[in-house]
């Protein structure tokens, strides 16, 4: 899945900045009859800006990865899931004690559960269970977790009991 940029609406400078940001992938096909113009390609550069003369040019770039407030915990989770459990519990507890339910809802909805360990997911469910009446998004989150652990063969008897 890529974002397409139309050069008629996007300045070369901003395209260049996108390229230099490192998230540029060359378009898969080009019209060879139309010469490439625009940004100069340096021989050593590992990117190739494709701006076609007189035509709407499409530059393919991958979408910017959305930054999630729990990304730092996901990083810890890769090496130390137990520590990640403690960190996520502390963070959610802090939000709960400030009644930041909308923020937690947003975090639950946007959290990529495919990257998280089962331990971390259990911890999120456990920490939010007491506030489930104030977190409508939690039910969907629970269902996503349940589907994931079943589909990946990670389910164990008792794993999600009491966390609905």
């Amino acid at each position, binding site marked *: 899945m890529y974002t397409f940029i139309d050069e008629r609406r996007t300045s070369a400078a901003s395209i260049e900045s996108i390229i230099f940001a490192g998230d540029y992938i060359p378009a898969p096909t080009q019209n060879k009859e139309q010469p490439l113009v625009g940004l100069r390609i340096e021989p050593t550069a590992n990117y190739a800006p494709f701006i076609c003369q007189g035509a709407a040019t499409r530059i393919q770039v991958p979408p910017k990865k959305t930054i999630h407030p729990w990304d730092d915990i996901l990083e810890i989770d890769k090496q130390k899931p*137990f520590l990640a*459990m*403690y960190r996520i519990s502390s963070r959610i507890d802090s939000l709960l004690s400030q009644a930041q339910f909308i923020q937690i809802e947003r975090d639950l909805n946007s959290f990529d559960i495919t990257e998280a360990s*089962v*331990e971390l997911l259990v*911890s999120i469910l456990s920490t939010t269970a007491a506030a489930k009446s104030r977190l409508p998004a939690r039910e969907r989150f629970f269902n996503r977790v349940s589907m994931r652990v079943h589909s990946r063969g990670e389910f164990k008897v008792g794993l999600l009991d*009491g*966390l609905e």
Partner: protein
Amino acid sequence: MSIRKNIFNPTERPFEEIESAATVITKSGDNFHLGLIYRNPETEELRFLHLAWHLDLVDQDLPGNGKYLWGCPDLPEERVMDIAIRCLLVIDANSKGEVPYAFSYPNDFFNAETGQMLLGSRGVGLTCATFVMAIFHMANINLINYSSWRERKSDKYFQQYIVSQMEKNRVPKAHIEEVLKEVNGLRFRPSEVMASTVTPPEVSTMLQLEPLGLEVQSHVNETLNPVSLPTMCKHPI
């Protein structure tokens, strides 16, 4: 069902085998005492957490070998890890250790979100055993089927004994008056709670846990020498 195979002597199976959390039981005088061993995820150190007496929640180094028996909760490890996390939340929120002693129900005794005590309408205080139950409650695990529990005369005597010890130890009268309101003979004994933690969650009724609790007591009596609690608690329970 024999419960002995689920309860270990640290001289044979050291505490270091505990991955994230376990329950521990000992005997002091005529009474049994229950607590938790949990692993701190920051330091990876094992710690011993227990309610020793009125306003005396203790988070300390591991007890020496031969003093306590331990058992792992019969739950998926992910849930046991969550119990360890709840221990830390309670310690963080009650750093002075001032958890009162009484006979309240353990469900919702601590705020599951913050680890702080919900005193007043929720309860007056906990015993060593109901403290362990309260931690499990925070982790959304109910150890006991409350509706199956019945009063026992011996438990009422025990509760009255505790009140007398509170009076001797100059616990404030206002607290003792609140505790007296809870003297009703309904008690979850340390041995029964220990049994409930090391058996599957469906083992939760009084009918199931009372005989298992007696087996735990026998196991402790045969295995351990009585210990003195290393705290201000002069009358351990």
